[in-house]
């Protein structure tokens, strides 16, 4: 149904798509996945010509899409975006029926379509048709976003990380629903995500991209059994059946590098301002040569601080440190045994590399066990 033939696209000197070719069959649920910048969204947008490739051809149903009027093409393809984009000045009904109206369907037909679609997602017409998007929850809004894409019965629906902005529970629920809808209406869906879980759950075919190229294109089961590349493997993470033996992990694998550091000669007021503007409640304090000196919390400042004084006087040295190449288990133990919520990770030369908080530790472990956590 959709055929990519040697498609390439560059922005300036950066090549985003490098000569990619693939086929998507009718009625297939294809998921494009890969690390940031791999070209998955660009690929999606070439299908409805929001982005035009530099070379190569794209065929839909055997026809070269550049031979068609782009606006008409887009009206025949459904499009759902992450930010939802429901028009705030229109009601639910007006939003859903926008493409049919653009295609000049009669009023009664439009209303019928809206009724049927709302029934599909269990949102009765009488209650919902006249509401405005701001009156709906995020999940409901995105459902309407999907209905809007379905309204003119396009054979193909493009979805660009549509559930990315929703909470995990709503996301799961919508994933189920879209899977049902796709099966029921027999649509061809091209779906972009960075969440492997989502891909495995939804896809008939996963197209894994990296750096503008297709690394592997296979069904979820096949990809799990025979990942073509280490990057595919790392995305699959815990989904792998066989335990390869836990890889060697260092403290640096669990650390956050975004740490706010100030020299010890800073004054209390500066520190407060920095903490407030970055929304943190402690700072790392450095010596003149950038090596680690200590830490200070907003509580300490409130309790003991005097305006205009140097922060060095309030610094505590009770936070535990660990070297970045020390093994992760050591870091873990030290964090648990310390009374602060975090430990500092230091480079060889005692400058600050990052910190490991209880939250970042828990998150990393959760991901290792169950796949991506919020």
């Amino acid at each position: 149904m959709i055929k990519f033939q040697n498609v390439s696209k560059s922005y300036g000197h950066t090549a985003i798509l490098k000569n990619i070719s693939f086929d998507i069959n009718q009625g297939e649920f294809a998921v494009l996945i890969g690390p940031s910048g791999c070209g998955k969204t660009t690929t999606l947008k070439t299908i409805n010509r929001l982005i035009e490739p530099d070379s190569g051809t794209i065929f839909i149903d055997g026809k070269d899409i550049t031979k068609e009027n782009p606006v008409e093409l887009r009206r025949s393809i459904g499009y759902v975006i992450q930010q939802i984009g429901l028009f705030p000045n229109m009601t639910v009904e007006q939003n859903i029926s926008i493409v049919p109206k653009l295609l000049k369907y009669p009023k009664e037909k439009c209303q019928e379509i809206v009724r049927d679609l709302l029934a599909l997602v269990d949102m009765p017409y009488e209650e919902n048709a006249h509401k405005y998007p701001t009156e709906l929850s995020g999940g409901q809004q995105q459902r309407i976003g999907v209905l809007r894409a379905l309204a003119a019965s396009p054979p193909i629906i493009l979805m660009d990380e549509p559930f990315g902005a929703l909470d995990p529970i709503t996301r799961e629920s919508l994933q189920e629903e879209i899977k049902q809808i796709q099966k029921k209406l027999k649509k061809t869906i091209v779906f972009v995500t960075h969440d492997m879980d989502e891909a495995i759950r939804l896809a008939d075919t996963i197209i894994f991209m990296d750096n503008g190229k297709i690394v592997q294109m296979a069904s979820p089961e096949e990809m799990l059994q025979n990942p073509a590349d280490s990057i595919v493997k790392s995305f699959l993470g815990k989904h792998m059946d066989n335990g390869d033996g836990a890889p060697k992990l260092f403290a640096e694998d669990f650390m956050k590098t975004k740490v706010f550091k100030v020299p010890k000669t800073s004054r209390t007021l500066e520190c407060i301002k920095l903490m407030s503007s970055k929304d943190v409640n402690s700072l790392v304090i450095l010596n003149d040569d950038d090596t680690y000196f200590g830490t200070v919390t907003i509580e300490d400042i409130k309790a003991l601080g005097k305006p205009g004084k140097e922060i060095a006087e309030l610094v505590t040295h009770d936070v535990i440190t660990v070297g970045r190449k020390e093994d992760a288990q050591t870091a873990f133990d030290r964090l648990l045994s310390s009374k602060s919520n975090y430990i500092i990770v230091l480079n060889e030369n005692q400058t600050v590399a990052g910190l490991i908080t209880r939250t970042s530790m828990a998150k990393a472990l959760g991901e290792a066990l169950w796949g991506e956590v919020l």
Partner: protein
Amino acid sequence: MSGALLEGILEHMAIVSIAVLISSVLGIIMGIIAYWVRFLDSVILWVSEVLQTIPSLALLALLMIIFGLGDITMIVGLVLYALLPIVRNTYTGLKNVSPHLKDAARGMGMSKMQRLFKVEIPLSFPLIFSGIKIALVNSLSVAVMGVLIGANGLGTIIYCGIQSRNMMNILMGAIPVVIMALVFDFGMSKIEKKLIKRTK
């Protein structure tokens, strides 16, 4: 001729400077009061807005009934006219200071006054400065009408030009006003940007 022009420029600047100075002090104080005293805020903002809605010539003429002809009337008029941007920006600036910061300052033991002068005003300063800039640039323009109520300034030269249908005179009076307005607007905008960077 250039003597009269120079005199006009100086008079104009003097009237505008005095008015903007008074207006800034008054405006900032009113902004602070609106910020501190909850129920007064809408009143104060409303009064400032009303003053700006009154047509300037009407305001000046009414003031003339009270204060008579001359520079004082003009200054009073300019002060009233310049209040809105300054009051509103002071109030908004103070309100927008992050609550965390105010908490920390309070926790450290600062009095209300200290908090105002050491934390809240410094952080709102770019916005206050912007209000003063708007007031200044507007005042330069409005002050030209001074001639109609017997005040000094470049309006005199301009009006003379109008009466005698003399384009040269009009331009001679007008160009300094426009240049001053553009220079101040540009200069103060640059300073404003620097101030914003510093408070980030």
